[in-house]
């Protein structure tokens, strides 16, 4: 919310709206199309998603191998185009790095997107309730957020995943259950401000129920910026998941994930230092795209907030 206070000194880069009657989304899309960086980030992300989703097909048709097929005669291969499956090298048992990256992408992206959806559901729900109902309910939710924010999340994740050894689905639920506080704070603040506005009073006067006011009148007003938060959230969750998997507590081998490929790479530093590069680069690229999309979306939805 700190961004709301950004000064309004932009003139030069403010894009004039095309026509007066254009709606929020039309205007946003109009600005977004002109934002080359965001569009590029979007294109890269879509490519990554498609590549990950098509991993089995690509693996068979292009590389003619599978993510677990080993070749003990071809261990620690340096990156080479002959055969193409070793374009990023091979690991300690001769598995193709590029193929494992594709499958790892499936896991990381899936966890990122679904877990972010979970945080969104919890965050928006609790934020609306806390902001609209206020009173003791708000106090309890606020106290819970303060408490949760005072535990270093990685410590908590560490305990949970070491004691419960979660599969990808449980991991999603756990991450989702821990990362909603930022969204709740945001939605709560917005709801606080919105509930005092005339159109809410009007809705209340004609007898709309609290649920209806929250879902039909407040939510649509908060929604645009929630998409911004969501893009950034997915990025953060992918970062956390990779760190967790790197520590050996997230996605477990033999399922490849970008994080646990790095654990392996670290064990073979001296033998094959180049193995460290590709998995981290994939995480970096994905998260970078998501953050850029988040920034671009925010600027497009509300040019006044543009972070110059």
């Amino acid at each position: 919310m700190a961004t709301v206070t950004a000064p309004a000194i932009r003139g030069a880069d403010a894009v004039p709206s095309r026509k007066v009657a254009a709606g929020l989304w039309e205007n946003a899309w109009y600005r977004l199309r002109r934002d080359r960086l965001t569009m590029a980030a979007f294109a890269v992300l879509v490519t990554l998603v498609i590549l990950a989703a098509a991993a089995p097909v690509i693996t068979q048709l292009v590389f003619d191998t599978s993510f677990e097929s080993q070749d003990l005669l071809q261990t620690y291969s340096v990156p080479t185009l002959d055969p193409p499956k070793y374009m990023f090298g091979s690991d300690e048992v001769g598995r193709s790095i590029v193929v494992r990256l594709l499958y790892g992408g499936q896991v990381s992206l899936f966890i990122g997107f679904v877990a972010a959806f979970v945080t969104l559901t919890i965050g928006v729900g609790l934020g609306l309730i806390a902001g609209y109902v206020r009173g003791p309910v708000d106090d309890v939710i606020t106290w819970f957020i303060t408490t949760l924010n005072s535990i270093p999340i990685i410590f908590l994740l560490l305990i949970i995943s070491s004691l419960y050894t979660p599969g990808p689905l449980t991991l999603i639920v756990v991450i989702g259950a821990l990362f909603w506080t930022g969204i709740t704070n945001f939605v709560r603040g917005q709801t606080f401000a919105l509930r005092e506005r005339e159109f809410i009073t009007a809705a209340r006067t004609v007898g709309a129920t609290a649920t209806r006011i929250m879902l039909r009148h407040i939510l649509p007003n908060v929604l645009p910026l929630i998409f911004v938060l969501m893009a950034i959230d997915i990025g953060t969750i992918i970062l956390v998941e990779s760190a967790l998997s790197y520590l050996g507590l997230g996605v477990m081998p033999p399922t490849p994930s970008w994080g646990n490929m790095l654990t392996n790479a670290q064990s073979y530093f001296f033998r094959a230092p180049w193995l460290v590069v590709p998995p981290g680069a994939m995480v970096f690229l994905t998260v970078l795209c998501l953050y850029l999309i988040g920034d671009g979306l925010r600027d497009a939805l509300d040019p006044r907030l543009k972070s110059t």
Partner: protein
Amino acid sequence: MRAYILKRLLYAIPTLLGISVIVFAVTHLSPGDPVRLYTFGALNITEQDIEDLRHHYGLDKSLPLQYVDWMSLAIRGDFGTSLQYHQPALGLLLERLPNTLQLAALALLLQLGIGVPFGMIAALNRGKPIDSVIRVFGVIGHAIPTFWIGLLLIVLLSVTLRVLPSGGMLTVGKDFWDIPDRARHILLPAFVLALAGIANYSRYLRTETLDVIGQDYIRTAYAKGLSERLVVYRHALRNALIPMVTALGPILAVVVSGALIIEQVFTWPGVGQLTYLAARNKDYPVIMAGVMVGSALLVISYLIRDIAYAVVDPRIKVK
């Protein structure tokens, strides 16, 4: 001021209680029996022995009772005995706390020392190439997995160029007070730990400085003939730094959490590493003490942040 600090201290109590409940619940509701785990493979152990052990550790009571038992001891600093090391859990952690604090303190210094000037320079040169460079760095610093940067730096500086050690605090066999050797060891982990914060600070300070520079009193300062330097340091920077104190909270959280991962990458013998090993070995007393110590660090840093904020901005009061 004293009343504010007292109130703020009181507010920390329900938070700490909440943390203890969460930590306790998470650890004790987990599947897997620690007694069975630690007696696994012991040939001549009977069911009776297991019962006795369970009774000895109080594991046969109901969960709320166990919580009260644990809490009443924990308040006095007794988190029980480590199942792995057979030493008091809190003692083990406190032994390693200075190591983590060293790392965190140096990281914070680096963040301020690099992040603040970066943000200022970017804001004062808005739109010029240097501004773009710093902004791009800011985005990259956010999006890059820090442990990966750590690994890359190890490959580059330790494995390939062999200029810095790849981990640990001290070369084996060196004197405990060998400061240059310690400095060489702490440099990489502290820098990597600082990265996210540097990005954060520079980005934040840039926005704040731009905000301040647009204010009327800056124009007044220029109008009355003050030099650029005076305006920047005395008027702009000081006012831009005030809201930065709030940014300290999330940054501290990142440092504490990040320390756990970075300690793992650089085999730094700190609180995070101990907690990590305890979690892998289901050493419950150490796990719980570790999370409580980590959370206490955060609660204390939030406290310091709020008090600092009240000091720099007298308008703040506890609501």
